[in-house]
């Protein structure tokens, strides 16, 4: 029996327009058989939450290389939790070391900094989503 594809909401927050990395990741996840709901730039906690509600994704992925992630990701985590939504939340791009620790502490599931390979991201998502479905959290 075919299994439904992993669904990933992928967007960039704030005014950061550098979407080469996000598009590269979108293509890599697609080639790994995932459905990528690509939101592009200019996302906010609001718009990411909206997609996390109606798209029922397994993963919400945020790409950022302008440092704006700290203005949006913590708020997103709070609001997801407030609505009892528990997708995996992953962040990628240029993320400062201190911020990485803080984001993980706040509940981000994984961070993929510069130089991360698509293979590593795909492997992580497959394993983590699988573990979730065994938990019965979703899927």
């Amino acid at each position, binding site marked *: 029996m075919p299994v439904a594809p992993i669904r990933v909401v992928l967007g960039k927050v704030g005014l950061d327009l550098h979407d080469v990395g996000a598009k590269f990741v979108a293509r890599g996840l697609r080639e790994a058989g995932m*459905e*990528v709901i690509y939101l592009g730039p200019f996302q906010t906690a609001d718009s990411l939450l909206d997609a996390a509600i109606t798209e029922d994704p397994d993963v919400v992925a945020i790409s950022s290389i302008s440092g704006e992630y700290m203005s949006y990701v913590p708020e997103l985590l709070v609001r997801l939790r407030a609505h009892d939504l528990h997708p995996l939340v992953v962040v990628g791009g240029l993320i400062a070391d201190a911020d990485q620790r803080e984001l993980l502490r706040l509940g981000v599931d994984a961070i993929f900094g510069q130089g991360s390979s698509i293979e590593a991201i795909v492997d992580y998502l497959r394993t983590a989503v699988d573990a979730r479905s065994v938990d019965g959290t979703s899927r």
Partner: protein
Amino acid sequence: MTAPISSTAERVALARRISAIERQACDGGDALPAAPRVAATRSRVLGITGPPGAGKSTLVDALIGRYRARACRVGVLAVDPSSPVHGGAVLGDRIRMHRHAGDAGVFIRSMGSRGRTDGLAPAVRDATRALAAAGYDPILVETVGVGQTELGIVECCDLRVLVLAPAWGDYVQAAKAGLIDLVDLVVVNKADLPGADSLVNDLRQSARRDELEIVRASAERGEQGIVEVGLTLDRLWAALAAERLAARRLEAAAAELANRALALVARGPLERVTAAGTTQRLAAAVRDGTLSASEAAALLYRDMFGSSP
């Protein structure tokens, strides 16, 4: 009267129901036990189709705005193609509808086509019912970018809108497109571009029907045309609801039922003969020219069902 927005809890529940519908459509096609079966047929389902880049998502975005101004709950199912090789997909329609993110009266769901080749996704019909049962009306179904014969919206949508843009092609292209004969409204989008007038003229000549509605629109010129598209849809819907809606839905349901039953009938036997190597053997004969495709199909059928077709 349904409230113009729905609570987050309702939206979460609806999203999970649609996921269940998608999983079930992916796993097989057996009935989903808890699927809504009643009270889900009053909403209008509007199909938006057309070639890639014609402006389907932009038109859907404008229509969402129009219906929201009338306090309707608007449901959107936006389909993009899944890869036939690995099943992956980039679903990008939400980008064009960004301004409605956070509006609790709009429910946008992106879907990969997951093996369907008629412009839709396997879960579309049942998902429209789930949206209708949750009080969404209208429901806008945006197909993948289609060519000339992807007619899936005919099976799932009450009114069918074809979006074209001037660069799309000439008279001959328009004349041979099967879609033209099955849609209720053609929107000539990007009407600010050169070629719009001649496209409209070509359409008028190639449409065999006097009743084919053609409206020009241009996102580049604000909401120009959108008001007319909306009014035309209202008029078409009123006429359809008064006369042919039940008949059209019956026809559509019959077509989809037949397709699904065909797939169910053929799947098991086809898997069996394929596993036994028969399909490969006959395919080789077709490749080498020793059998025609229809001769080989007849032989395959005999192997699948034990009798001649």
